[in-house]
């Protein structure tokens, strides 16, 4: 296991129904790095996260997590498709928080968080409950452990979703437009929580977001993505304040117009 890199995309291509969303993407992310991906809708940003979370399979190319290939195994110089056990092993290193929360409506908040540790990591339920309550406390919802997801506000749901993803202790956390479905006031509460998380943990974090101020606060690197390719990348101040590419400048001015 090579710990020099956390994530590697090597020549990744992906199309949906004739539409090429990613075309020969190459990207390397270091351990503990916080990378923010920005860009117009349909540019393929979410696809990057979904590929990493193994929700989708790339048409061609390799994805490596901590130096290990996700979808293929090398056996005596032959590249074979990985078996489900290997893919699940790779998947266990990644966690994801979604734009629409995707909480399980038929389980109470505590069970939403404990279900995976109990069924996937075989953690005893009492221990899982204890850890879940700790996580809920950390996201500021200790008193909501017995509530139904339907009884929560949007911001509360997203915080439970974050706790649920953290319960499996992933090495890499993915955040797919986590505040796009929230009111601005609530959004900043959630973003502050994520900022705390970034400071307190060693996780590699990958963000897709439209929140530029948040990007400036959290990003070690900002990547501007358009039409399936990286247009420009650099530090937050480089990309957001003094972009070199005209497309980047156009996108940023449109975003500022909207907010």
């Amino acid at each position, binding site marked *: 296991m090579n710990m020099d890199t956390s994530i590697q995309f090597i020549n990744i291509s992906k199309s949906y129904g004739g539409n090429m969303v990613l075309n020969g993407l190459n990207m390397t992310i270091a351990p503990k790095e916080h990378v923010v991906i920005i860009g117009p809708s349909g540019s393929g940003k979410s696809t990057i996260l979904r590929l990493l979370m*193994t929700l989708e399979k790339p048409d061609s190319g390799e994805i490596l997590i901590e130096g290990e290939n996700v979808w293929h195994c090398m056996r005596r110089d032959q590249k074979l498709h990985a078996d489900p056990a290997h893919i699940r092993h790779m998947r266990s290193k990644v966690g994801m928080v*979604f734009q629409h929360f*995707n909480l399980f*409506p*038929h389980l109470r908040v505590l069970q939403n968080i404990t279900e*995976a540790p109990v069924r*996937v990591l075989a953690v005893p339920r009492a221990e899982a409950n204890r850890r879940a309550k700790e996580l809920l406390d950390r996201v500021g919802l200790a008193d909501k452990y017995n509530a*139904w*997801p339907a009884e929560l506000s949007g911001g509360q749901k997203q915080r439970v979703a974050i706790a649920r993803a953290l319960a*499996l202790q992933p090495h890499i956390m993915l955040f797919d437009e986590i505040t796009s479905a929230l009111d601005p006031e609530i959004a900043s509460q959630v973003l502050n929580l994520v900022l705390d998380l970034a400071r307190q943990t060693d996780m590699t974090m990958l963000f897709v977001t439209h929140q530029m101020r948040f990007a400036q606060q959290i990003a070690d690197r900002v990547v501007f993505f358009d039409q399936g390719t990286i247009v420009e990348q650099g530090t937050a101040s480089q990309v957001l304040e003094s972009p070199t590419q005209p497309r980047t400048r156009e996108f940023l001015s449109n975003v500022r117009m909207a907010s």
Partner: protein
Amino acid sequence: MLHIVPTLLRGALVTGEVTGGAIIVASVSASCAVAMRLSGLAALDWPARVYIELFRGTSALIQLFWVFYALPLILPFRPTPMAAAIAVLGLNGGAYGAEILRGAILAVPKGQQDAAIALNFTPIVRMFRIILPQALPLIIPPLANLFIDMLKNSALAGLVQVSDITFQSQILQESTLRNAEVYGLALIIYFIMALILAGFMRFLEGCFKFPIGARV
């Protein structure tokens, strides 16, 4: 009037047997057919679709008569009336049930599948702990209608010598010629059985409810 009711009630017991047996067969065949259709493998999808279209596209009575009269001419054995009735009515109900199950499972928001995969559940745990529990409230109401249809279809069993309400009512009709009472009472007994079944399904519906609010 006096001996009509007990005779019909004896038939009602058999009707219950046939309906119950058919519901069990239907549950099994519907679950198998849905699993085959949702497996993503064309080799499994096609046989399931043929089964579903075959049993939904033809009449239950024709299916029953075919199994009871035509099948023994091909196969070396003859099924008992009860076995034929339960098998045919069960497979018939299962074809409709498979589509109900499939519709409900596909109606569960895709984000639930995403979240379940992200949390690394195995496919079996995903289906049984996350997807199916959310599909159940969508399954039970149409399933209740299907089960009542199967109760009504069980009346066909009497036409192939199963001693159910239909069969007993035919015998009573010939022996007493009191047509209005015999068939009127038969209708009432079926109606009461349907109401009991409907009530039970409503109770089941209540068991699996959870607060929905805004669907997340």
